[in-house]
């Protein structure tokens, strides 16, 4: 009897690992037990729903913290001020004082990605950044923003000049046919590497946690326990660390891409 049950559980876990690489979230459950159009819609747009949840969470926290600005701040206001100041220092440390103009975009990006990465650690939720669609959308935003800054700060001719590798002498002009496609490819590599890096890391973390949750359930399945061993716990801590690092890497690279796009005198001190 026990062997039979073990076999069944092993089969279920193996089946789950084949089909699902991540833990079930509340939308998966809704879709499993309710077969209506709403459930289907939610399941289809799962990542968008969780991304919007992260955005609404940030809006709510910011609203609560900034609603009543006090000279002696509340703990929430203090935490948010600390976050804003740290992000401001990060960006201005790389770009210089002019970088303050880009703090709202880069800061929002960091906090948004951080919250999305951490959502995978909350039971019933999912990291939207474990989907390439979400990370590609973020990377395309960064690509558009960086190119927009390049055109705005350098002018159209200056932007094309930057893409040609700033040719100033004969050798520079001779090298232009090579430099132009090289720079265009370089600009296109940026969003691809940004999106793949974030997606791969977060999916890897979430899959690891899901695998250890499965193992924990399997470990206690011989006594028909409704809960499993928390074998995934160390990896939750690791995920906290890696989620922060990935959010930081994404925003840091965005800052460097902006800095490389600015006219030379603007970011050299």
């Amino acid at each position, binding site marked *: 009897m026990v062997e039979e049950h073990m076999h069944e559980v092993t089969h279920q876990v193996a089946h789950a690992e084949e089909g699902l690489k991540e833990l079930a979230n509340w939308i998966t459950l809704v879709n499993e037990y309710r077969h209506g159009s709403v459930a289907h819609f939610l399941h289809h747009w799962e990542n968008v729903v969780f991304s919007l949840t992260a955005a609404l969470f940030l809006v709510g926290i910011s609203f609560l913290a900034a609603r009543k600005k006090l000279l002696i701040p509340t703990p929430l206001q203090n935490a948010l001020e600390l976050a804003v100041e740290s992000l401001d220092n990060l960006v201005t*440390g*790389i770009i210089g004082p002019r970088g303050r103009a880009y703090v709202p975009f880069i800061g929002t990006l960091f906090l948004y990605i951080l919250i999305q990465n951490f959502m995978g650690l909350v039971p019933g939720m999912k990291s939207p950044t474990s989907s390439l669609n979400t990370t590609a959308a973020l990377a395309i935003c960064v690509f558009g923003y960086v190119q927009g800054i390049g055109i705005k700060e350098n002018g159209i001719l200056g932007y094309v000049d930057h893409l040609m590798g700033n040719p100033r002498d004969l050798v520079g002009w001779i090298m232009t046919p090579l430099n132009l*496609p*090289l*720079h265009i*490819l*370089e600009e*296109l*590599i*940026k969003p*691809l*590497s940004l999106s*793949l*890096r974030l997606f*791969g890391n977060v999916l890897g973390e979430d899959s690891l946690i899901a695998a250890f949750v499965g193992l924990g359930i399997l470990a206690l399945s011989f006594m028909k326990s409704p809960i499993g061993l928390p074998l995934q716990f160390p990896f939750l801590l690791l995920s906290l660390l890696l989620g922060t690092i990935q959010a930081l890497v994404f925003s840091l*690279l965005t800052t*460097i891409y902006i*800095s*490389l796009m600015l006219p030379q005198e603007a970011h050299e*001190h």
Partner: protein
Amino acid sequence: MVFAAGPILGFAIGWWVDEKWGFDPWGKTILSLLGFVASVKQVIDLIKKATKDVSSDVSEDTSNNA
């Protein structure tokens, strides 16, 4: 990741170029190589930028301490 993205992107664009203008296999070959060179250049640029920031921070600290 940047090293992987360069040749992949170059190959993808090269494929499209070959399909469009029938340069097969030159589009894929040349653009994959260009993608690799672009990714190496980007990594060098990033390292240069990072080391410049670190060295400017160190020199600022030294001048503050002096």
